[in-house]
């Protein structure tokens, strides 16, 4: 069992979960820093996917550890300003992992992807199934790199017929402990929205997201699955549940403003994410339920409330530390 990106949120939690599973004899954690949950079963290797030698190194590790499954989580959860590194890590890094997996004849590859890759297109149906093409704007590296990584995985599944390739597309993950661009967006005191638009949003709770990966590791479920919570909520309701103030911005202005804020490092995501504040991007989780037996414990609303209660505690603490 190998976990790449083991020090990420999903990686850390998954390593912790696998440590407790007696069916797993050894966990190989690969990242540029060790996961904090690593215990006696975990062996950590420092591999930088942005280095050209990563391929050979990974293949050596796979062979030496006689691993049969790789869980590939080395993706950025939030958009980054370091575009070159992000591209190397996500697109080229996935290539490294899959080449090494093919070389070491791994039995199974589980890869993380996101439903935001479907793109918030005005012509989207209310529920996007796994068959829907990934239409996120290719001009945005955050999406383009991940779409390339998915294409790599699809090519790998085609070239290596015996291998099981599972791609889990999670909705934006929300929960009490995770930090990503969505939680940062929702913990702003003033949350920008698009004037007159109130799209339906969908999240998945962090526990459900981790549980989905565990399911994909425990059983063989080849294919692509949307990992989403039940139910949707309008953006305005999400902001109100989070106790924040929405500031509507006219959408012709928003793109320019968003680009400027991103350039000034003052926003969570580049302007191309703004379509998500205007149009629908909701995935259909039926396939994961039927084929994988994935049962999300939290609905979208409960995930928002769970995140909100933790965020409120953080706010109160902040208030105590810096009294007005």
């Amino acid at each position: 069992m190998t976990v790449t990106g083991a020090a990420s949120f999903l990686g850390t939690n998954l390593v912790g979960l696998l440590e407790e599973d007696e069916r797993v004899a050894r966990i190989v954690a690969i990242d540029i820093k060790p996961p904090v949950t690593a215990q006696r079963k975990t062996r950590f290797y420092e591999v930088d996917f942005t280095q050209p030698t990563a391929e050979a190194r990974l293949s050596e590790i796979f062979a030496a550890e006689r691993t049969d499954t790789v869980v590939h989580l080395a993706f950025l959860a939030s958009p980054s300003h370091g575009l070159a590194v992000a591209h190397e890590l996500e697109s080229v890094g996935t290539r490294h992992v899959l080449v090494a997996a093919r070389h070491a004849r791994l039995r199974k590859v589980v890869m993380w992807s996101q439903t935001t890759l479907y793109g918030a297109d005005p012509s989207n149906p209310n529920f996007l199934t796994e068959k829907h093409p990934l239409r996120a704007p290719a001009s945005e590296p955050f999406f383009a790199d991940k779409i390339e990584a998915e294409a790599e995985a699809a090519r790998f599944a085609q070239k290596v017929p015996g291998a099981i390739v599972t791609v889990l597309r999670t909705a934006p993950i929300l929960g009490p402990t995770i930090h990503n661009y969505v939680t940062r967006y929702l913990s702003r005191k003033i949350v920008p929205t698009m004037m007159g638009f109130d799209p339906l949003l969908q999240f998945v709770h962090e526990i459900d997201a981790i549980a989905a990966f565990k399911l994909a590791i425990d059983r063989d479920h080849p294919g692509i699955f949307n990992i989403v919570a039940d139910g949707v909520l309008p953006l305005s309701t999400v902001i109100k549940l989070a106790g924040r103030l929405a500031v509507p911005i006219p959408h012709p202005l928003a793109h320019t403003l968003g680009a400027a804020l991103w350039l000034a490092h003052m926003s969570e995501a580049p302007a191309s994410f703004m379509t998500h504040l205007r149009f629908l991007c909701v995935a259909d989780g039926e396939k994961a339920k039927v084929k994988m037996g994935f049962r999300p414990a939290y609905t979208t609303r409960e995930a928002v409330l769970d995140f909100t209660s933790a965020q409120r505690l953080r706010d109160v603490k902040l208030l105590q530390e810096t009294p007005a």
Partner: protein
Amino acid sequence: MTTRTKKTTAAAAAKPKRATRAPAPPVSKEVPAKPQRKPKPKPKPKPEPKPERARRAAAAAPDADPSVVAQIRELEAQLDRLIDEASRHDVSSLDPEDAETWHGEPTFEPGDPVPSDPVPDVSEPSFDAEVTLPIASTTGTWPESGPGPASVGAGPGAGFGDGAGPAASPSYGAGAVPPAPESVFDTARELLSSDFYLRKWGRLAMRGRSEEVDDFGFDPIYDAKLKPVLDFLYDKYFRVETTGIASVPKTGRCLLVANHSGTLPLDGVMIKAAVKREGRDVRWLTEDFIYHMPYLGSAMNRLGAVRACQENAERLLANEQLVAVFPEGVKGIGKLFAQRYRLQRFGRGGFIKLCLRTGTPIVPVAVTGAEETNPLLFKIEHLSKALGVPYVPVTPTFPLLGPLGLLPAPTKWTIQFGEPLDLSSHGPSAADDEILVGKLAERVRATIQGMLDRNVGSRKSVFFG
């Protein structure tokens, strides 16, 4: 539920604040405003060493009598508490004289090598009477605080536990210091802090909307809130007359196919209102440009509109819902007044394929009166491209009176529901037979056209029916 949690967290957030601005004791009446700004004298370095010392002392005698240890603990807690109180007291209400006497106190001179000297050795079990509070006695504001035997005997557990936290202090609650009444300034401060408005906003925020919408965005509370408006439009404004509503099934999937008219898409809302009176919710499919129009689109969505596309319709019908479609689409609402009540092409027969695949009965619907609400005289082609809308309407009132010109004329409406059409005899495979689909679409179109012609012919006045 949210508002309640909000309230409690707000209270939780406010509590520590109030604790820090401790109530002013009676002595400090002459104290001018803002006593907090006064330089804080001694006690800051003090709180740390004492309990630590006590702890060390307790640790140094591990084989001591457990009762002695308990007593030490108790005293330690008491000390903590007293120090805490004293420091708070100093911060909040120290007047200049007090500060002076304070500095004049020999035991607390800055040059004193051992600042904790006045405190007797804590390891001695029998000292509780001597734990005089230098701080309290100096300021003289607490005649019977702390060291009284009653508060010592209050129970070791409680005293220890409470004393540990700086916010909650038992003797404070016991009434040694009477809490100052809420002054006008407190209220004003509360009102002026931005947090107050945020909290109020939070309480009001979820009013008029549900915490959960259904999968397609229908919000029952929002719907109930807007019901009076729809009822007004239905009963008073358009005086809608509905016939043949019995052909709409009470349960199970069904597709209402209606003509589309009237520049503004009000016919969907009126069909919804008509069916709602029979106790069913209808989901109607709207074209993109309405669905993505600011404000209007999201409001329609909360009322039950869904973006028109094959996947959505299939999913709704699979959920046994009642779905209304307008196969004419934008061509229907954007047709000129001269073409009124002439049905446009029925798309590509998508709705027929849908019904064939899912085995759904069709109920044709004819809406009369909507064509005259905003008679469309011209469409400005160039502007529509620039604005990104399918047409810019020119009605007798629209650009002339500004946005007010878009108000619909109060025409008399009739909505006629025709006989249901069952397509299940053709089977799902017939959806691939384009010729049959075309024929069936034409049949539905002819039925609705016939109903329209009859209704338009039989009415005497556009406004009075």
